Protein backbone atom coordinates (compact mmCIF):
# COMPACT_ATOMS: atom_id res chain seq x y z
CA UNK A 1 0.00 0.00 0.00
CA UNK A 2 1.22 3.49 -0.83
CA UNK A 3 1.19 6.10 1.93
CA UNK A 4 2.29 9.75 2.10
CA UNK A 5 3.89 11.37 5.16
CA UNK A 6 4.56 15.05 5.80
CA UNK A 7 8.23 15.54 6.68
CA UNK A 8 10.75 18.28 7.40
CA UNK A 9 13.53 16.86 5.21
CA UNK A 10 13.76 14.34 2.39
CA UNK A 11 14.68 10.96 3.90
CA UNK A 12 13.28 8.19 6.09
CA UNK A 13 15.03 9.51 9.20
CA UNK A 14 13.47 12.96 8.72
CA UNK A 15 11.69 14.66 11.55
CA UNK A 16 7.93 14.63 11.01
CA UNK A 17 6.28 17.88 9.85
CA UNK A 18 3.15 18.45 11.94
CA UNK A 19 1.49 20.53 9.19
CA UNK A 20 -0.29 18.96 6.24
CA UNK A 21 -0.91 21.68 3.64
CA UNK A 22 2.18 23.71 4.57
CA UNK A 23 4.55 20.79 5.21
CA UNK A 24 7.99 21.22 3.65
CA UNK A 25 8.16 17.77 2.04
CA UNK A 26 5.99 14.82 1.21
CA UNK A 27 7.42 11.34 1.59
CA UNK A 28 5.77 8.67 -0.56
CA UNK A 29 6.33 5.17 0.86
CA UNK A 30 5.29 1.72 -0.36
CA UNK A 31 4.60 -0.20 2.85
CA UNK A 32 5.04 -3.58 1.13
CA UNK A 33 8.45 -3.00 -0.46
CA UNK A 34 9.56 -0.03 1.71
CA UNK A 35 10.57 1.74 -1.48
CA UNK A 36 10.24 5.47 -1.03
CA UNK A 37 10.69 8.87 -2.68
CA UNK A 38 10.55 12.42 -1.30
CA UNK A 39 9.16 15.47 -3.07
CA UNK A 40 8.82 19.05 -1.98
CA UNK A 41 5.21 19.85 -1.15
CA UNK A 42 3.60 21.79 -4.01
CA UNK A 43 1.16 23.28 -1.47
CA UNK A 44 3.86 24.71 0.82
CA UNK A 45 4.20 28.02 -1.01
CA UNK A 46 0.60 28.42 -2.19
CA UNK A 47 -1.07 31.72 -1.38
CA UNK A 48 -4.24 29.82 -0.55
CA UNK A 49 -5.65 26.32 -0.75
CA UNK A 50 -2.40 24.72 0.41
CA UNK A 51 -4.20 21.74 1.95
CA UNK A 52 -6.11 21.12 -1.26
CA UNK A 53 -2.95 21.27 -3.34
CA UNK A 54 -1.16 18.82 -1.03
CA UNK A 55 -4.21 16.51 -1.08
CA UNK A 56 -4.17 16.65 -4.88
CA UNK A 57 -0.54 15.46 -4.77
CA UNK A 58 -1.44 12.57 -2.46
CA UNK A 59 -4.29 11.55 -4.76
CA UNK A 60 -2.06 11.78 -7.84
CA UNK A 61 0.33 9.27 -6.20
CA UNK A 62 -2.57 6.80 -5.87
CA UNK A 63 -1.79 6.66 -2.18
CA UNK A 64 -4.35 5.12 0.17
CA UNK A 65 -3.32 6.88 3.37
CA UNK A 66 -1.84 10.20 4.51
CA UNK A 67 -0.04 10.71 7.82
CA UNK A 68 0.43 14.17 9.35
CA UNK A 69 -0.05 16.10 12.57
CA UNK A 70 -2.92 18.19 11.32
CA UNK A 71 -5.70 18.10 8.69
CA UNK A 72 -7.61 21.33 8.05
CA UNK A 73 -11.20 21.35 6.77
CA UNK A 74 -10.32 21.73 3.08
CA UNK A 75 -7.59 19.10 3.20
CA UNK A 76 -9.94 16.77 5.06
CA UNK A 77 -12.73 17.24 2.52
CA UNK A 78 -10.37 16.70 -0.41
CA UNK A 79 -8.67 13.61 1.04
CA UNK A 80 -11.98 12.12 2.07
CA UNK A 81 -13.42 12.67 -1.41
CA UNK A 82 -10.41 10.84 -2.83
CA UNK A 83 -10.97 7.95 -0.42
CA UNK A 84 -7.64 8.52 1.31
CA UNK A 85 -7.47 7.53 4.99
CA UNK A 86 -5.91 10.07 7.37
CA UNK A 87 -3.75 9.24 10.38
CA UNK A 88 -2.09 11.37 13.08
CA UNK A 89 1.56 11.21 14.10
CA UNK A 90 0.79 11.29 17.80
CA UNK A 91 4.20 11.34 19.51
CA UNK A 92 6.16 9.90 16.56
CA UNK A 93 9.45 11.75 16.18
CA UNK A 94 10.60 10.67 12.73
CA UNK A 95 9.19 9.21 9.52
CA UNK A 96 10.73 5.78 10.14
CA UNK A 97 8.95 5.43 13.45
CA UNK A 98 5.65 6.60 11.96
CA UNK A 99 5.86 4.04 9.13
CA UNK A 100 6.50 1.23 11.62
CA UNK A 101 3.60 2.28 13.79
CA UNK A 102 1.34 2.65 10.75
CA UNK A 103 2.14 -0.90 9.63
CA UNK A 104 1.53 -2.14 13.17
CA UNK A 105 -1.86 -0.36 13.15
CA UNK A 106 -0.89 1.86 16.08
CA UNK A 107 -1.64 5.29 14.59
CA UNK A 108 -4.87 7.13 15.35
CA UNK A 109 -7.19 7.46 12.36
CA UNK A 110 -8.86 10.84 11.80
CA UNK A 111 -12.63 11.05 11.40
CA UNK A 112 -12.95 14.81 10.90
CA UNK A 113 -10.85 17.97 10.42
CA UNK A 114 -8.40 18.42 13.30
CA UNK A 115 -8.84 22.21 13.37
CA UNK A 116 -10.94 25.08 11.99
CA UNK A 117 -10.35 26.96 8.78
CA UNK A 118 -7.36 29.27 8.71
CA UNK A 119 -8.17 32.96 8.35
CA UNK A 120 -8.88 33.07 4.64
CA UNK A 121 -9.83 36.74 4.63
CA UNK A 122 -6.55 37.80 3.05
CA UNK A 123 -6.60 35.14 0.34
CA UNK A 124 -6.29 37.56 -2.50
CA UNK A 125 -8.47 39.95 -0.59
CA UNK A 126 -9.42 41.66 2.59
CA UNK A 127 -7.99 43.60 5.55
Amino acid at each position, binding site marked *: MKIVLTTVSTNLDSEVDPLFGRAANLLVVDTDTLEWKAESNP*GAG*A*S*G*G*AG*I*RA*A*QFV*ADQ*NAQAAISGDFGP*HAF*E*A*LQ*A*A*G*IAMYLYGDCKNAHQAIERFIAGQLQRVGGPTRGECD*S*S*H*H*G*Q*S*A
Partner: protein
Amino acid sequence: MIITVASGKGGTGKTTIATSLAHSLAVEQPTPPLFLDCDVEAPNAHLFLHPRLDEQQDVALLIPSVNESKCTHCGKCAEVCQYHAIAVLGQKTLVFPQLCHGCGSCTALCPEKAITEIPDRMGVIERGLATGGISFARGVLDVGEPMAVPIIRQLKKWVPAKPGQVVIRDAPPGTSCPVVESMRGSDFLLLVTEPTPFGLHDLRLAIQVGREMGIPCGVIINRENGSYPALDEFCFDNHLPVLLRIPFERVIAEGVAQGKTLVEIHPEYADRFLRMFTQIASLL
Protein backbone atom coordinates in the same frame (compact mmCIF):
# COMPACT_ATOMS: atom_id res chain seq x y z
CA MET B 1 -10.52 64.00 -10.52
CA ILE B 2 -10.60 60.92 -8.29
CA ILE B 3 -9.43 61.35 -4.69
CA THR B 4 -9.18 58.26 -2.50
CA VAL B 5 -9.13 58.67 1.26
CA ALA B 6 -7.09 55.90 2.90
CA SER B 7 -5.09 55.50 6.08
CA GLY B 8 -3.34 52.29 6.86
CA LYS B 9 -4.43 52.32 10.48
CA GLY B 10 -8.15 51.98 11.15
CA GLY B 11 -10.08 54.62 13.08
CA THR B 12 -7.92 57.60 12.09
CA GLY B 13 -10.87 59.49 10.57
CA LYS B 14 -11.07 58.46 6.90
CA THR B 15 -14.84 58.68 6.75
CA THR B 16 -14.91 61.94 8.72
CA ILE B 17 -12.50 63.48 6.21
CA ALA B 18 -14.08 61.95 3.10
CA THR B 19 -17.63 63.01 4.00
CA SER B 20 -16.51 66.49 5.11
CA LEU B 21 -14.66 67.00 1.83
CA ALA B 22 -17.73 65.82 -0.10
CA HIS B 23 -19.91 68.22 1.87
CA SER B 24 -17.60 71.16 1.19
CA LEU B 25 -17.37 70.42 -2.53
CA ALA B 26 -21.14 69.94 -2.86
CA VAL B 27 -21.65 73.58 -1.96
CA GLU B 28 -18.88 74.97 -4.12
CA GLN B 29 -18.70 72.82 -7.29
CA PRO B 30 -21.15 73.19 -10.21
CA THR B 31 -21.71 69.41 -10.07
CA PRO B 32 -21.83 67.96 -6.55
CA PRO B 33 -19.25 65.16 -6.10
CA LEU B 34 -19.70 61.44 -6.45
CA PHE B 35 -19.02 59.59 -3.21
CA LEU B 36 -18.10 55.89 -3.20
CA ASP B 37 -18.01 54.04 0.11
CA CYS B 38 -15.51 51.32 -0.77
CA ASP B 39 -15.25 49.99 2.80
CA VAL B 40 -17.63 47.20 1.86
CA GLU B 41 -16.90 45.13 4.97
CA ALA B 42 -18.14 47.93 7.23
CA PRO B 43 -19.59 50.81 5.22
CA ASN B 44 -20.51 53.79 7.41
CA ALA B 45 -20.41 56.93 5.25
CA HIS B 46 -24.22 56.79 4.92
CA LEU B 47 -24.42 57.76 8.60
CA PHE B 48 -22.95 61.16 7.66
CA LEU B 49 -24.35 61.74 4.18
CA HIS B 50 -27.88 60.29 4.60
CA PRO B 51 -28.40 58.96 1.06
CA ARG B 52 -31.69 57.59 -0.23
CA LEU B 53 -30.47 54.28 -1.58
CA ASP B 54 -33.14 53.63 -4.16
CA GLU B 55 -31.19 51.46 -6.59
CA GLN B 56 -29.62 48.09 -5.81
CA GLN B 57 -27.73 45.43 -7.69
CA ASP B 58 -26.51 42.02 -6.50
CA VAL B 59 -22.82 41.23 -6.86
CA ALA B 60 -22.10 37.61 -7.66
CA LEU B 61 -19.05 35.59 -8.51
CA LEU B 62 -19.31 32.90 -11.19
CA ILE B 63 -18.40 29.63 -9.49
CA PRO B 64 -17.70 26.45 -11.50
CA SER B 65 -20.12 23.58 -11.34
CA VAL B 66 -18.85 20.25 -12.68
CA ASN B 67 -21.02 17.86 -14.66
CA GLU B 68 -19.61 14.54 -13.39
CA SER B 69 -21.12 12.59 -16.30
CA LYS B 70 -19.06 14.60 -18.80
CA CYS B 71 -15.89 14.98 -16.64
CA THR B 72 -13.01 12.67 -17.54
CA HIS B 73 -10.94 13.79 -14.52
CA CYS B 74 -8.13 14.92 -16.77
CA GLY B 75 -7.05 17.50 -14.19
CA LYS B 76 -6.72 20.52 -16.52
CA CYS B 77 -9.03 22.62 -14.33
CA ALA B 78 -7.06 21.90 -11.14
CA GLU B 79 -3.78 22.54 -12.92
CA VAL B 80 -4.85 25.98 -14.14
CA CYS B 81 -6.50 27.16 -10.89
CA GLN B 82 -4.12 29.51 -9.10
CA TYR B 83 -6.21 29.42 -5.94
CA HIS B 84 -6.62 25.62 -5.66
CA ALA B 85 -10.36 26.13 -5.64
CA ILE B 86 -10.88 23.05 -7.79
CA ALA B 87 -9.21 19.67 -7.27
CA VAL B 88 -9.34 16.41 -9.16
CA LEU B 89 -9.07 13.59 -6.68
CA GLY B 90 -9.09 10.24 -8.37
CA GLN B 91 -12.55 9.90 -9.87
CA LYS B 92 -13.96 13.04 -8.24
CA THR B 93 -13.68 16.72 -9.11
CA LEU B 94 -14.25 18.93 -6.10
CA VAL B 95 -14.99 22.68 -6.05
CA PHE B 96 -14.18 24.87 -3.02
CA PRO B 97 -16.36 27.95 -3.63
CA GLN B 98 -14.79 30.01 -0.83
CA LEU B 99 -11.39 29.89 -2.53
CA CYS B 100 -12.72 30.62 -6.04
CA HIS B 101 -11.96 34.06 -7.50
CA GLY B 102 -14.35 33.58 -10.41
CA CYS B 103 -11.67 33.97 -13.09
CA GLY B 104 -13.32 31.42 -15.39
CA SER B 105 -10.06 29.69 -16.43
CA CYS B 106 -11.32 26.20 -15.53
CA THR B 107 -14.50 26.66 -17.56
CA ALA B 108 -12.64 28.05 -20.56
CA LEU B 109 -10.00 25.29 -20.59
CA CYS B 110 -12.13 22.21 -19.85
CA PRO B 111 -11.72 20.02 -22.98
CA GLU B 112 -14.97 18.18 -22.26
CA LYS B 113 -17.04 21.35 -21.67
CA ALA B 114 -18.06 19.73 -18.40
CA ILE B 115 -18.01 22.98 -16.37
CA THR B 116 -20.77 25.55 -16.22
CA GLU B 117 -20.66 28.71 -14.13
CA ILE B 118 -23.22 29.37 -11.43
CA PRO B 119 -23.60 32.87 -9.94
CA ASP B 120 -22.85 32.90 -6.21
CA ARG B 121 -24.04 36.09 -4.49
CA MET B 122 -21.47 37.75 -2.25
CA GLY B 123 -22.99 41.16 -1.61
CA VAL B 124 -24.81 44.12 -3.02
CA ILE B 125 -24.11 47.59 -4.42
CA GLU B 126 -26.50 50.47 -3.75
CA ARG B 127 -26.80 54.05 -4.94
CA GLY B 128 -28.90 57.16 -4.56
CA LEU B 129 -28.79 60.87 -3.87
CA ALA B 130 -27.37 62.18 -0.57
CA THR B 131 -27.20 65.48 1.35
CA GLY B 132 -26.42 68.50 -0.83
CA GLY B 133 -27.01 66.65 -4.11
CA ILE B 134 -24.03 64.32 -3.60
CA SER B 135 -24.22 61.20 -5.78
CA PHE B 136 -23.70 58.39 -3.33
CA ALA B 137 -22.93 54.70 -3.83
CA ARG B 138 -21.68 51.96 -1.60
CA GLY B 139 -20.97 48.24 -1.56
CA VAL B 140 -22.01 45.87 1.19
CA LEU B 141 -20.34 42.48 1.55
CA ASP B 142 -22.59 39.68 2.80
CA VAL B 143 -21.75 38.33 6.26
CA GLY B 144 -19.43 35.32 6.00
CA GLU B 145 -18.14 36.14 2.51
CA PRO B 146 -14.35 36.39 2.45
CA MET B 147 -13.73 38.50 -0.68
CA ALA B 148 -14.34 42.24 -0.84
CA VAL B 149 -12.51 43.06 -4.08
CA PRO B 150 -15.16 41.96 -6.61
CA ILE B 151 -17.71 44.21 -4.89
CA ILE B 152 -15.40 47.23 -4.94
CA ARG B 153 -14.54 46.57 -8.58
CA GLN B 154 -18.20 46.38 -9.57
CA LEU B 155 -19.07 49.45 -7.47
CA LYS B 156 -16.47 51.51 -9.35
CA LYS B 157 -17.82 50.33 -12.70
CA TRP B 158 -21.49 50.82 -11.82
CA VAL B 159 -21.36 54.55 -11.11
CA PRO B 160 -19.24 56.45 -13.60
CA ALA B 161 -18.50 60.11 -12.85
CA LYS B 162 -20.22 62.83 -14.86
CA PRO B 163 -17.94 65.21 -16.80
CA GLY B 164 -16.22 67.53 -14.34
CA GLN B 165 -17.55 65.64 -11.31
CA VAL B 166 -15.03 65.06 -8.51
CA VAL B 167 -15.01 61.48 -7.19
CA ILE B 168 -14.27 60.78 -3.53
CA ARG B 169 -13.60 57.18 -2.57
CA ASP B 170 -13.64 56.19 1.08
CA ALA B 171 -11.22 53.24 1.28
CA PRO B 172 -11.15 50.44 3.84
CA PRO B 173 -8.35 50.44 6.45
CA GLY B 174 -5.18 48.42 5.96
CA THR B 175 -3.04 47.93 2.88
CA SER B 176 -4.36 44.67 1.47
CA CYS B 177 -6.21 43.92 -1.78
CA PRO B 178 -9.47 45.82 -1.05
CA VAL B 179 -7.41 48.96 -0.35
CA VAL B 180 -5.39 48.47 -3.53
CA GLU B 181 -8.61 48.01 -5.53
CA SER B 182 -10.07 51.18 -3.96
CA MET B 183 -6.92 53.14 -4.82
CA ARG B 184 -6.55 51.79 -8.36
CA GLY B 185 -7.35 54.46 -10.94
CA SER B 186 -7.18 57.35 -8.42
CA ASP B 187 -5.45 60.63 -9.19
CA PHE B 188 -4.59 61.40 -5.58
CA LEU B 189 -4.38 59.61 -2.24
CA LEU B 190 -5.38 61.48 0.87
CA LEU B 191 -3.85 59.54 3.75
CA VAL B 192 -5.36 60.24 7.13
CA THR B 193 -3.14 59.50 10.11
CA GLU B 194 -2.94 60.22 13.80
CA PRO B 195 0.12 61.33 15.77
CA THR B 196 0.83 57.98 17.42
CA PRO B 197 3.51 55.35 16.73
CA PHE B 198 0.79 53.04 15.41
CA GLY B 199 -0.58 55.76 13.11
CA LEU B 200 2.90 56.49 11.77
CA HIS B 201 3.74 52.81 11.33
CA ASP B 202 0.67 52.20 9.19
CA LEU B 203 1.03 55.49 7.31
CA ARG B 204 4.45 54.27 6.24
CA LEU B 205 2.86 51.12 4.81
CA ALA B 206 0.08 53.05 3.07
CA ILE B 207 2.63 55.40 1.47
CA GLN B 208 4.54 52.39 0.17
CA VAL B 209 1.38 51.09 -1.51
CA GLY B 210 0.69 54.52 -3.03
CA ARG B 211 4.25 54.85 -4.32
CA GLU B 212 4.18 51.33 -5.75
CA MET B 213 1.00 52.27 -7.62
CA GLY B 214 2.48 55.57 -8.77
CA ILE B 215 -0.25 57.72 -7.22
CA PRO B 216 0.70 61.04 -5.58
CA CYS B 217 -0.05 61.24 -1.85
CA GLY B 218 -0.78 63.88 0.76
CA VAL B 219 -1.25 63.55 4.50
CA ILE B 220 -3.91 64.74 6.93
CA ILE B 221 -2.99 64.62 10.61
CA ASN B 222 -6.11 64.06 12.66
CA ARG B 223 -6.55 64.35 16.45
CA GLU B 224 -3.38 66.39 16.81
CA ASN B 225 -2.60 66.86 20.48
CA GLY B 226 0.72 68.59 21.08
CA SER B 227 3.65 67.70 18.93
CA TYR B 228 4.78 64.32 17.65
CA PRO B 229 8.01 65.16 15.81
CA ALA B 230 8.52 61.66 14.38
CA LEU B 231 5.43 62.05 12.17
CA ASP B 232 6.38 65.50 10.84
CA GLU B 233 9.93 64.32 10.22
CA PHE B 234 8.64 61.33 8.29
CA CYS B 235 6.43 63.54 6.10
CA PHE B 236 9.26 66.02 5.53
CA ASP B 237 11.84 63.34 4.69
CA ASN B 238 9.47 61.68 2.24
CA HIS B 239 8.31 64.91 0.57
CA LEU B 240 4.74 64.34 1.71
CA PRO B 241 2.69 67.52 1.94
CA VAL B 242 0.72 67.80 5.20
CA LEU B 243 -2.50 69.20 3.80
CA LEU B 244 -4.58 69.58 6.94
CA ARG B 245 -4.20 69.31 10.70
CA ILE B 246 -7.25 68.68 12.85
CA PRO B 247 -6.92 69.13 16.60
CA PHE B 248 -7.93 66.60 19.21
CA GLU B 249 -11.14 68.19 20.43
CA ARG B 250 -14.03 66.92 22.50
CA VAL B 251 -16.57 68.94 20.46
CA ILE B 252 -15.46 67.20 17.28
CA ALA B 253 -15.67 63.75 18.88
CA GLU B 254 -19.16 64.48 20.17
CA GLY B 255 -20.31 65.80 16.79
CA VAL B 256 -18.92 62.81 14.88
CA ALA B 257 -20.62 60.48 17.35
CA GLN B 258 -23.90 62.21 16.41
CA GLY B 259 -23.30 61.62 12.70
CA LYS B 260 -22.10 65.15 11.85
CA THR B 261 -19.32 65.96 9.42
CA LEU B 262 -16.55 68.38 10.44
CA VAL B 263 -18.20 71.05 8.31
CA GLU B 264 -21.42 70.75 10.31
CA ILE B 265 -19.52 70.82 13.61
CA HIS B 266 -17.26 73.74 12.66
CA PRO B 267 -18.58 75.57 9.53
CA GLU B 268 -15.19 77.26 9.05
CA TYR B 269 -13.79 73.85 8.04
CA ALA B 270 -15.60 74.14 4.68
CA ASP B 271 -13.07 76.77 3.61
CA ARG B 272 -10.15 74.71 4.88
CA PHE B 273 -11.34 71.71 2.86
CA LEU B 274 -11.81 73.81 -0.28
CA ARG B 275 -8.33 75.31 0.10
CA MET B 276 -6.97 71.80 0.53
CA PHE B 277 -8.78 70.73 -2.63
CA THR B 278 -7.24 73.61 -4.57
CA GLN B 279 -3.83 72.61 -3.22
CA ILE B 280 -4.36 69.01 -4.35
CA ALA B 281 -5.39 70.22 -7.82
CA SER B 282 -2.19 72.29 -8.00
CA LEU B 283 -0.06 69.27 -7.03
CA LEU B 284 -1.34 67.22 -9.98
